[in-house]
């Protein structure tokens, strides 16, 4: 695989000199201008072609082709909420959003024409954004755009991109529709490229940046784009292809309720005294201890005041984390790998009468006997019993 520096050498965006007649400068004047700039910089006249390319690269907005597969458009919607920068600044001043089913003025054949024209104009230079998962069951027939499955579209489009951004959990790892039994065989973009054997036209791997979240925070997307446009490189990624600036820490490590966790102060139920005092939500099933995301750091909606799920009193359910979000039950307790809380704290919110079998109900009855039972490990047994049942059930499926 090539390093980021190598592929970034390619110019991005359409050539501005092709369009100068629109802006009132003809191509000849532009070549003269580039030549005089070359001389002014003390470079050999033969370098003027390079200078011209550099000027063009600076001026044009890089093209973005945004594809929607199995998705809910929530990630596009999240960009409508951003304030720094705004969506209008993004698409009017920063990038050229050449194809987007949600926002494109033209439909049908006009939409197809916009896509093909941009691909031709920006071959090897456009940024591909994918929102939604790829259905691998039944040849991808579960999702079609203009008669094409996501696989067919990726074969046609992806090799010509400079890099790809998988926005949201669906494009990153399959998202909600990949939850068991995953009826459509939904997978993320990187996995789909691997299955289909899709590379760039020169045979190198297409870099994929994963921005999971349901939806992805608009700032994780915008910061990735700005990082690329301003620092001229891709952000540092973790082993799962996620930018470290956004996914480098567990929610648990950055949560304003962490002191309550450390002190053993937990909400046991919505609306109880602990809940109204802002205590830790671990016992309600908060997945902060096993979810990597920057929600507590940047929050949502730019309205301050702890505006993120845990901040208002709802446990994190791990929407960005594969194997947690849409996988574990909301009130199931998280696996804590960093710190283990004392075992004497009372039980979680998970159990309710109906869902428990006779065996585990007997254990639940014992649990009701008091906290001493927990200290003896019965609580852990109950959890193991429930897990074993779940495993059994899934094997039967």
């Amino acid at each position, binding site marked *: 695989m090539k390093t980021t520096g190598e592929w970034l050498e390619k110019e991005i965006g*359409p050539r501005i000199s*092709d*369009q100068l007649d*629109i*802006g009132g400068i003809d191509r000849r004047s532009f070549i003269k201008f580039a030549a005089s700039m070359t001389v002014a910089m003390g470079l050999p006249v033969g370098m003027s072609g390079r200078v011209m390319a550099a000027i063009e690269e600076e001026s*044009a*907005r890089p*093209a973005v082709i945004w594809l929607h597969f*199995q998705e*809910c*458009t*929530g*990630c596009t919607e*999240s960009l*409508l*909420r951003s304030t720094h920068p*705004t969506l*209008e600044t993004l*698409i009017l001043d920063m*990038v*050229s959003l*050449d194809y987007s*089913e949600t926002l494109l*003025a*033209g*439909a*049908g*054949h*006009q*939409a197809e*024409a916009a896509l093909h024209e941009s691909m031709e104009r920006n071959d090897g230079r456009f940024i591909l954004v994918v929102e939604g998962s790829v259905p691998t069951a039944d040849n991808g027939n*579960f999702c079609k*755009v*203009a*008669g094409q499955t996501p696989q067919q579209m990726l074969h046609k489009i992806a090799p010509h991109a400079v890099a790809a951004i998988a926005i949201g959990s669906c494009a990153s790892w399959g998202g*909600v*529709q990949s939850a068991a039994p*995953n*009826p459509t065989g939904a997978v993320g973009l990187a996995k789909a490229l691997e299955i289909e054997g899709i590379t760039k036209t020169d045979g190198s791997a297409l870099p994929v940046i994963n921005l999971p979240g349901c939806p992805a925070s608009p700032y994780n997307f915008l910061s990735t784009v700005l990082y690329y446009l301003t620092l001229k490189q891709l952000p540092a990624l973790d082993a799962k292809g996620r930018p470290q600036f956004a996914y480098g820490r567990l929610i648990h490590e950055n949560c304003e309720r962490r002191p309550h966790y450390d002190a053993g102060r937990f909400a046991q139920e*919505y*609306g109880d005294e602990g809940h*109204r*005092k*802002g205590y830790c939500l671990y016992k309600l099933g908060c997945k902060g201890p096993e979810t990597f995301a920057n*929600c507590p750091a940047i929050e*949502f*909606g730019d309205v301050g*005041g*702890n505006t*993120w799920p845990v901040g*208002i*009193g*709802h446990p994190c*359910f791990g929407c960005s984390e594969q194997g947690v979000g849409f996988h574990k039950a*909301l009130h199931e307790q998280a696996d804590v790998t960093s710190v283990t809380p004392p075992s004497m704290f009372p039980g979680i919110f998970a159990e*309710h*009468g*109906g*869902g*428990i079998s006779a065996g585990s109900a007997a254990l639940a009855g014992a649990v009701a006997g008091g906290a001493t039972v927990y200290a003896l490990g019965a609580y852990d047994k109950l959890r193991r019993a429930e897990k074993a049942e779940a495993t059994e059930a899934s094997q039967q499926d």
Partner: protein
Amino acid sequence: MSTNRITVDPVTRIEGHLRIDCDIKDGKVVDAWSSGQMWRGIETILRGRDPRDAWLYTQRICGVCTTVHAIVSLRAVENALDLEIPLNAQLIRNLIMASHGIHDHIVHFYHLSALDWVDVPSALKADPKATEKLAQSISNWPNNNAQHFANVQERVKKFINSGQLGIFSHGYWGHKAMILPPEANLMATAHYLEALDYQRRSNQITAVLGAKTPHVQNLAVGGVANAINPDNQSALNMERLAYVKTLMDELGGFVREVYLPDVTAIAALYADWLPYGQGVTNYLSAPDFPRDGKGTEFGMPGGYIPNADLSQFHEITHFGDPYFEKNVKESIKHSWYQGDWTRTPYEEETEPEYTDFNENGAYSWVKAPTFLDQPAQVGPLANVLAGVAAGHEPTKRYLKMAMDRIGAITGSEVPLSVLHSTLGRHAARCVRTQVLYDMMQENYDALIANIASGDYTSFNKPVFPKGEQMGFGFHEAPRGILSHWIVIEDGKIKNYQAVVPSTWNAGPRNQDDARGPYEASLIDNPVLEEDRPLEVLRTVHSFDPCLACAVHLHDNERQTVVRVNTA
């Protein structure tokens, strides 16, 4: 003249993947098919899961209609358990419904459908002074001044001169059906940009209460997860509530002084279009904005109107009303699922079986719902008509305001019957937004009063008994009546079905081969340029579809697809 087939796939400026096929003869649509192009199997995934988790999954059905599939899922589970929720929880849910609905309607008009009526490049020819005169003749909005319009014009000019038109490339600019004067186009373009700002404020209200948006995370079966405590910094306190109020006040100006004047002005300037797009005139809507924890009294009425006859209005009166429960069915005769049945949602199974587009057989992932065995149109128009039929004062007041404004521009009184149309759906959505704004104020005041009375409760714990329970919930979502249906067995989900507004409207032909609302509304729609079927988009967009699509041309005679290159 021969009949030509147009296929629009993908339909853009909607949510999701939608394909529309039309047969065109003598410049008019003579037949139409609507096809949903994506299936994700969320109902299948829910089986066996904890009913308390369902809303987290169902909310992901749609990120545009976020919140709605969450709220209705809670209502379905609570109905199955016969669980009442605290008043605070109901009011917080109502506030989120109002703020989300207002955002959604604004975005639909300006960002998803205005480009069907507004020619953006034509705005460059406008005189900013004349634009100011036009805008000030219909509204007192402070930004309606020549300087602001000149700035917008400059921004658009710079953008177009960059040669990179982005989302505005291949729009229907200069199309014969685009008839607004340059000044109206400039005004609308300026408001397209301003609307982005104001829809954000509406979203900020949703965020303060819902923790995030899209996909709020403050809900729970039995109430809400918001902790209410005026004496704590980590709870819903006076600072948070004051923020909601401030955002509400800012939003009000745009809703009253920009959105309403714009929609009515565009409808009046396009008065020739008032006869088009009627389609199915059985209207179904849900009552919503419950004023108690049980759902027996509502801020907005809903019910069923057969054949556009308001005197036949049958009101739906409470959560769990059997009149609704007994009369909803879905058919899969023309959908890509195994079998051929018409059933109540409780008894449905959705086993996919894809067979490609077959107009006489199966051609869509969408099912065909019926009410009293008939197709029904749902959405803001159905909601507004129910309001009129029920004598709902705010609806009647804002509707009259809108009709008077249209009449003032066209110079003649406009009869209510024009509402059964493409433009009528836009007007009704705008009227509904005005009512939603009233609802937001009412529920905010009620929440403050209830907290002031010392009631901080926000959650009643659900208890799941052994055995089987069935329930359904309904919600008047921005795109119309939404219902979720659940069967619970021993505390786990046994069956789950969602009957979605866009299913009602975008559904294929039903068990009797009767056309769905999109299909029926396209009949007799004019199409001036077959290779640029702008008018088809106008009518389809007026429903605010929640799917996504593209356009090819078929030649029926030869049964081959003819691609018309318009690039």
